[in-house]
């Protein structure tokens, strides 16, 4: 049985590698090369209250992939969880495919925000958190994934300060830190959020139990950030 004939939700973490190969066409491209893979899997498998048949439920959780680059892991997980037909993955970047190198919310069910240009997802997530709270959906979580290099964009820092000022405890930011920011973050990324009053945690971004534990915590009255450390692009990966 090939992966394409499997039916969600029977697909599991172990199927992600062949799903990604449907897009990459690269037999050697291991899932560990995808910095976001484990965080995304834990979010969709254990954390987010989302489902394909609830794509328009206003009370659903929201996931925003701000770092829209390299979205194959995201698309593989959306397929594994039934948001996309598995065979759609094979159309990746075709002219009439819903899947390109940056996700488009108008083309993919379950994608909450289109992304690609860096530094937009977190500011949008602030507005989404405010909007859900105003309409009585304050229990819906907003989880926004950014990259450590993406934090170079100043728009993020406008958002980090205001999220605490507005007490957005429905908001969680996951920073995938693969040490790719050109000038680095002396003192650590978590400190950038901590001085603004965020709850912070540093975890190994491949450890599903650690990720689950930190992504499950709720901090009343303030947003939280989970910095998920993974291998830097230059490091050898087994």
């Amino acid at each position: 049985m090939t992966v394409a004939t499997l039916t969600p939700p029977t697909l599991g973490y172990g199927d992600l590698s062949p799903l990604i190969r449907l897009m990459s066409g690269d037999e050697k491209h291991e899932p560990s090369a995808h910095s976001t893979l484990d965080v995304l899997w834990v979010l969709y498998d254990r954390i987010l209250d989302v489902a394909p048949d609830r794509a328009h439920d206003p009370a659903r959780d929201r996931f925003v992939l701000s770092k829209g680059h390299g979205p194959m892991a995201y698309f593989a997980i959306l397929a594994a969880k039934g948001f996309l037909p598995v065979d759609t993955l094979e159309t990746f970047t075709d002219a009439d495919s819903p899947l390109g190198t940056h996700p488009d919310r108008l083309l993919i069910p379950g994608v909450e925000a289109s992304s690609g240009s860096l530094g937009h997802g977190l500011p949008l997530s602030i507005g989404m958190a405010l909007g859900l709270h105003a309409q009585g959906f304050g229990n819906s979580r907003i989880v926004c994934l950014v990259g450590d290099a993406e934090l170079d964009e100043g728009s993020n820092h406008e958002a980090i300060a205001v999220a605490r000022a507005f007490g957005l405890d429905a908001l969680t930011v996951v920073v995938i830190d693969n040490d790719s920011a050109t000038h680095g973050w002396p003192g650590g990324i978590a400190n950038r959020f901590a001085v603004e009053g965020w709850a912070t945690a540093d975890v190994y971004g491949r450890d599903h139990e650690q990720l689950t534990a930190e992504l499950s915590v709720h901090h009343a009255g303030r947003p939280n950030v989970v910095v998920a450390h993974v291998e830097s692009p230059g490091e050898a990966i087994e």
Partner: protein
Amino acid sequence: MSVAIKSTETMRERFGAVTTELLDRDDSVALVLADISADQFRPVAARHPDRAFNVGIREQLLVSVGGGLALTGLRPIVHTYAPFLVERAFEQVKLDLGHQDVGAVLVSIGASHDRADSGRTHQAPGDVALIGTLPRWTVHVPGHPDEAEALLRSSVADSGRVYLRLSERANTRSHVGRRGRAVRIRSGDAGTVVAVGPMLDPVLDATRDLDVTVLYAATVRPFDAPALRSALGEPNVVLVEPYLAGTSTQAVTDGLRDTPHRRLALGVHDAELHRYGTADDHDRAHGLDAAGLRRDITRFLEPAP
């Protein structure tokens, strides 16, 4: 409210009063500020802290928060000075509203050289041209507080993307017509002058004894080309816009594609003046006072030698 008070009320003040009323009445309306006009909205923001936000001096976030609110189904009104709203946050306008395909009502103040004494940093005569590069935006340029009110109300009741450009300059009379439609103010045979927003009074003054049709437009995107076609007699068209000259030239050209015509586009010149002074000083410098308009329009309408 007495008529006397109302007649001296600015578009900005009317925007404050009407937005306050809309926030009080309709719980789907939200307001996002970046410090500008925050004092004006303090009472209503205190009544509705869950729908009225001041993000501080953060214009990228201002527009993105509008986009996020719209993604959850609210109708955001997003407000600051024109250069910060349209130019500084342009990619947010393009992506966090347009590309996400959500709506908002962007309300600017400080039109063109309203703030002449502040210099170039507070002036954005290219704002309508910039918004015009983005698909599916409606652009309103009211010429009177009553028009600003009507356009604000209809824009908030709608769901699309709207740029509402308020000015400290205003005409003495309001011409509230059907939303989006140009209004024929008077008729003549030598040509058609299209006056946009606050340019109507100077145009009427400049052309008072000229044999021209004057069309008035408070909405320029989409441009009311059918009204121009039906008003057109002698095919001489003068476009008078209170922002960058030629901003709507393409719209006129497209609207008259089957009609050979001559065209003159008047507006703010693209040269930076590096001058302070008043808005009247800058109007004169750009030929947008009645005398300058009269000079250019008369020359254009003179028969070719």
